């Protein structure tokens, strides 16, 4: 990583919070054009900022009327996405943890998915993209851990690496594409609990993630688009999807 890249990387958090000056903002925005990894990080920070802004303060009465009266009938109509609302799923930790432990146990017993314990990394394949470069860099760090996630029949293998700061990369290109209404979801087993580390989409490639705590294993599941908080059907959800 060059000194410039490092400088811009250090600004990503502040940039996501609109806490940089105008020159820095322009520089970061140019950097984001050439670094998908950095763009993904900014998006992740903004998602967190969205949650920070969570509030139920009622807008003043009459404000909508003022907006509606300003709408130009000839203006481009908003697309369907305006009406699309993805509900935020939120669940107490305890309930999730209990279900997750049961899920991991059941899955392991049924050999539906293979969970491979993390090992000290030795692999050093070459980078082919910014994310691949970042993954390769993570591999080169002393103390980084790697995992190979296998389908039940061993025909599909997915490599992952997690550095000592908890920054991980999943090299998921080998996963077969899913229908658009399905998604892969990554889970980490942390202190014995299965914790969602992110929704990967239906055709993931190299995916960055973050995991803190005593991470001992990684799991990929096949879920409905949008992902889930708990997996309620561990025995039937994975067979054949990775194999």
């Amino acid at each position, binding site marked *: 990583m060059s000194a410039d890249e490092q400088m811009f990387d250090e600004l990503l958090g502040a940039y996501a919070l609109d806490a940089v000056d105008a020159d820095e903002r322009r520089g970061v925005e140019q950097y984001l054009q050439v670094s998908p990894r950095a763009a993904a990080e900014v998006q992740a920070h903004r*998602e967190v900022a969205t949650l920070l802004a969570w509030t139920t303060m009622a807008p003043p009465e009459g404000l909508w009327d003022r907006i509606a009266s300003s709408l130009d009938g000839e203006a481009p109509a908003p697309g369907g996405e305006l009406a699309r609302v993805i509900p935020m799923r939120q669940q107490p930790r305890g309930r999730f943890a209990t279900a997750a432990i049961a899920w991991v146990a059941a899955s392991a017993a049924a050999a539906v998915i293979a969970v491979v314990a993390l090992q000290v990394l030795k692999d050093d394949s070459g980078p082919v993209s910014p994310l691949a470069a970042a993954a390769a860099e993570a591999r080169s760090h002393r103390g980084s851990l790697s995992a190979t996630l296998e389908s039940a029949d061993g025909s599909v293998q997915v490599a992952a690496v997690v550095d000592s700061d908890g920054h991980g990369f999943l090299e998921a290109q080998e996963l077969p594409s899913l229908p658009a209404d399905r998604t892969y979801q990554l889970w980490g087993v942390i202190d014995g609990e299965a914790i969602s580390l992110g929704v990967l989409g239906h055709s993931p490639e190299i995916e960055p993630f973050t995991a803190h705590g005593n991470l001992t294993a990684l799991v990929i599941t096949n879920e409905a688009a949008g992902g889930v908080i708990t997996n309620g059907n561990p025995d039937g959800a994975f067979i054949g999807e990775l194999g």
Partner: protein
Amino acid sequence: MARFHQDALAEAYRRHAGSVFGLAKRLLGSQAQAEEVVQEVFLRIWNQPDRFDPERGSLRSYLLAQAHGRSVDMLRSDTSRRRREERDAHGTPAESHDLDREMWDLAVAGEVRTALERLNEGEREAIELAYFGGLTYREVAAMLGEAEGTVKSRIRAGLKRLRAELVAAGVTMGGS
């Protein structure tokens, strides 16, 4: 057709205007300016719907990012800055520097608050001053008497830690 889409905008307003207004009010401390931000944000998406890319996040995330950016622009204008400095000089607690728990009455707010409390003090302070105070990291550094690089790092690390805490708590990212 136009009526249908205006209904869509109305639905988006119904779902998200409270959050957009709350964030702007919190940053600006002025109801009138916050209303102006809400108006601008919703009119902008009406007039420029293509600027919202659902592949890059939810509508809620987009609207709040727009509201935050516009509020910060207003906050950094001379007039607003002077008013804020006068307010601070008179010893009035800066509303934007203190998490107003009364505003957060949804379940997810509790998880967010808990996650914030798990950050170390330096990270939490830097994020709150930058996001809710509308300050640049340099201004945060000057205010706290810390090195700029330290504050930059704390904001970035704190956001990553917050995300991990929220994910661990079962809060799904990219929600509406």
